[in-house]
């Protein structure tokens, strides 16, 4: 009768189910157990970093790069291949992307192609493209071999066909070349280090920095800094700080937080914009309301990180909200605008709201069509905020939403039914964690409205819970108190920092990266300054060096 649960967690981040050598986000003095392997020594005989597979442009990076490279802000690409190895469909999409971009050549940055490719033959135009567009596209100077190769593409096509075809072939080739599609990092030798450890050269570092902070190619200033050998020490810091105030960095941060909150969906839930809610219970849940939730959340992130002092903790504690009438109604805000076309900043009730985890976008995403989901909310906090590991649920774990109501003749609240279904011994290993955390959100219904009486069962809501698995475990009476604990948690900061390190290097850090990760986490844990976190990552060994040996992760 009961749903089963696998005993797969110990209440702390479980490392023994990780692949050997992985580092979990638990450095920084939180007292958890070892990480499954020896820590690399910090400050020893030079940089130590893990070997990682070559990366290629992600769909987001591809679109941004094409727009920035060509100066065509309206260019829309359809490259969406995210498989580990590019598929034939992905290769075809790259071709389509190049061809569509060339069709829009009139929208490109003036002078990028200094001729009319539909006009009379002009070989100097081809040379100009090779000397100016190609290095920008490849994010570094051309080699003689590449130059000769591109010239042959142009010349052979011009001979076999015509000037227009030859220019199209040249441009299309540049936009599909390996140096454009893949992030190639060869590096330079490091004195005193093993042969496998190499330092990214200036152009490779510039590229890695721009894709880390902007998800796009370096701009002219960064290219210039790379060319002048200025990307070391203070020079690298200065460039990172400059780039962090660019709108592209804000856009990257917004996208990261959206994904960090799993508002783009997951294996067990739909994205914010794909949710369905019961029409009878929530007639107010319309596409316009969902859009407004997204606007509110992004405004909150921007306001907290960029209008204020950019402190991470405030993402959990701030009661500032940018709302329209519909949002104000759901937030039970008395001074909200009167229409949905008007927007205004106000402060939410601090006894009911605080930070990201009490906002409508998050709460409605982690809910079923009819009721809240303490299980999904609890799992989310433990896994995404604390970098905890619960393992896979057992085969008899059900995904049927627990809705409360009449259960064998007794009316139960959602909380009571969840407790009933997860009370078996095989369940408690995980659900002692999940439920304790998740129940603190019980006041927020399936669309995020705060309630004292449950809509579906009529039962009074009990939102008492406990934060477990952190460095600040404590009892709580609601999600506001939970959020306050998370704001003060070093483990949460460590987890956030680790997620950004993963972004920067393109994979989970390995044991060889432990030194860098610990240094980054330690600094961020002290300050909570998000901008400083980005700079710390950019200055770390794991960011500036590569390991060209082995087959590691």
């Amino acid at each position: 009768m009961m749903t089963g649960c696998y005993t797969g967690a110990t209440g702390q981040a479980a490392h023994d189910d990780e692949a050997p050598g992985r580092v979990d986000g638990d450095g920084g003095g939180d007292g958890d157990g070892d990480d499954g392997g020896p820590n690399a020594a910090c400050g020893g005989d030079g940089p130590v970093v893990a070997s990682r597979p070559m990366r290629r442009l992600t769909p987001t990076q591809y679109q941004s790069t094409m727009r920035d490279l060509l100066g065509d802000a309206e260019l829309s690409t359809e490259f969406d291949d995210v498989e580990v190895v590019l598929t034939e469909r992905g290769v075809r999409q790259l071709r389509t992307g190049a061809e569509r971009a060339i069709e829009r050549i009139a929208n490109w940055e003036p002078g990028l192609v200094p001729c009319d490719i539909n006009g009379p033959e002009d070989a100097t135009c081809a040379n100009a493209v090779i000397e100016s567009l190609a290095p920008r596209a490849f994010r570094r100077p051309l080699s003689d071999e590449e130059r000769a190769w591109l010239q042959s593409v142009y010349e052979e096509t011009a001979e076999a066909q015509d000037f227009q075809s030859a220019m199209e072939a040249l441009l299309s080739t540049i936009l599909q070349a390996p140096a454009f599609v893949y992030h190639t990092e060869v590096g330079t030798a490091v004195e005193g280090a093993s042969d496998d450890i190499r330092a990214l050269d200036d152009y490779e570092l510039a590229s890695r920095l721009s894709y880390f902070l902007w998800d796009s190619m370096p701009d002219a200033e960064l290219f210039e800094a790379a060319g002048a050998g200025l990307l070391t020490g203070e020079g690298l810091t200065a460039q990172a700080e400059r780039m962090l105030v660019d709108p592209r960095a804000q856009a990257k941060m917004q996208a990261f937080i959206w994904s960090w909150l799993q508002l783009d969906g997951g294996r067990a839930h739909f994205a914010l914009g794909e949710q369905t809610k019961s029409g009878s219970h929530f007639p107010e849940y319309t596409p316009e309301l969902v859009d407004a939730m997204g606007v509110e959340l992004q405004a909150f992130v921007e306001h907290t990180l960029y209008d204020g002092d950019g402190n991470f903790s405030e993402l959990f504690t701030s009661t500032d909200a940018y709302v329209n009438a519909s949002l104000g109604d759901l937030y039970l805000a008395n001074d909200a605008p009167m229409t949905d076309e008007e927007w205004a900043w106000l402060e939410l009730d601090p006894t009911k709201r605080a930070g990201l985890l009490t906002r409508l976008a998050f709460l409605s995403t982690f809910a079923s069509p009819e009721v809240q989901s303490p299980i999904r909310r609890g799992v989310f906090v433990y896994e995404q905020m604390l970098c905890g590991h619960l393992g896979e649920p057992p085969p008899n774990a059900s995904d049927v939403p627990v809705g409360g109501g009449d259960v064998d003749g007794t009316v139960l609240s959602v909380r009571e039914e969840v407790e009933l279904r997860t009370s078996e011994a095989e369940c408690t290993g995980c659900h002692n964690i999940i439920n304790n955390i998740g129940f603190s959100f019980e006041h927020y219904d399936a669309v995020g409205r705060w309630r004292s009486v449950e809509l579906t069962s009529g039962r009074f809501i009990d939102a008492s819970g406990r934060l477990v698995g952190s460095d600040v475990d404590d009892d709580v009476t609601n999600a506001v108190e939970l959020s306050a604990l998370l704001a003060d948690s070093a483990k949460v900061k460590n987890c956030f920092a680790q997620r950004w390190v993963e972004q920067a290097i393109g994979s989970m850090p390995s044991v060889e990266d432990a030194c860098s990760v610990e240094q980054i986490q330690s600094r961020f844990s002290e300050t909570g300054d998000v901008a400083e976190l980005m700079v710390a990552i950019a200055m770390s060994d794991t960011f500036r060096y590569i390991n060209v040996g082995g087959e590691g992760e």
Partner: protein
Amino acid sequence: MGHGLKHSGRRAFLGGLAGTALALPLLEYTHGNAWAGGQVGPRRFLTVFSHGGTISNQSSGSKHAGTGNEHGLDLWRPADPTSPSLVLGPIHEPLEPWRDKLVLLESVDNRTGMVQGDYQGGHGMCNVSSLTAADIDRSGEDPSSLGPSIDQMMADRLMANTPTVFDRIHLRVPGHQYGSPYFRAAGERMGGEQSPVAAFNTIFDGVSSGAADPEALRVRAVRGSVLNGLQEEYTRFKGRVSQRDMLAIDAHLDHLASLEHQLDNLVVCTPPEGITDESGDGDIIGDLHAEIIVAAIRCGLTNVANLEISDIITPWTASGAATGNTLGHGLHHWARDVGPTGPYADSYDTWLAEILDNRRWRMGLVAKILEGLDDPAFMEGDATLLDNSLMLMTSEFSNGAKHHARNQPVLLAGGAGGALETGRYIDYNNYAADDPHTLSYESDESIHNLFVSILNLFGETDSTFGSADALHEGGLPGLV
């Protein structure tokens, strides 16, 4: 222009870009003309993969009686499993017009999933092994297969003998699922095209009923120049990357070669009218995909086609989507709790109506493909395209609520060029011979053996497929 394709019913001759015929007999048809060539036997292979299992009472080593928490239905099996001829059950009812061209199988396990998966199965494990039967790579964040899926194997074999423009096409009805089961090679997962517009434009790019447009020819020539250049540079690039990264660049080079092959083999065929509107849910997209597959096969653009159906809710079917199921995954999970002693016993009727409608809708897509391939307007001698094809319809689970790798549902359709005796039901449960309705379960057969049988139907002599987890070599007994 609205949904749906209109095909002229006319298939003109095939020819190469420079007027040189492909290595196929020269074919020229008008409506109703007979086959003029000499090739017999199975020509093409299709898969329809339906994520999320079927309506099954399969458990670990037995079947649920339907007296406890779980339901006791096995709706994959025929309505009368003892009948000498195939009597279709409610899920397969949409296929009734082609009943005599079907073979329904039960008790074919996924032994790789059972042996290497979590608790003898599991979402990711079954997804990566249900079409590959290959060893599972668990070193990454998500499991991966260490071998190709059966469709890729068939594509490679068929291309070697009867090359077509596309070695395979793969279309997907988007929605929730735990990963594509299609693999080109070890570690190379393939996702299907979910946009009918994009799929149509790609597959029918350059296809015309007469002389090619001069601008289209110019564009193709430019593409050829680009491909030549890219192949040169990617080959050089491969020499500069690590051993580990060579896999990615090798794959990229293979794909460039495929694009070049598609350029070099221009098909002349009256294409169907194009698709410009694909707005809608799975009911629109699924139908369009099925039509594209049929049209592509009729024009000889491919001999391997795949339709992947994600585990989606179907609010457009008769019973609609019940509240509480945000994901299709949730729908089949109710199976565990709707039995007479289950916590949701009072939802049994509603749940059954909904999931039956859902699974019947998916079968309706199979029916659409069968209808198109069995159309007498497109004959190959005295056989239809379907008669000379073999379709495999399957899922990663039987009972999706339990995630078990046992008893993977298998439906075969088409005569495989006369090699397959159809209109049959075979249950490989060792206990079924004594009692067709037994709840006891044990099977010696696996998808490894199924895939060997499929290869054998196409004249291949393989005796093994995939991992070493099968209980015996060779094909399924009694199938071929």
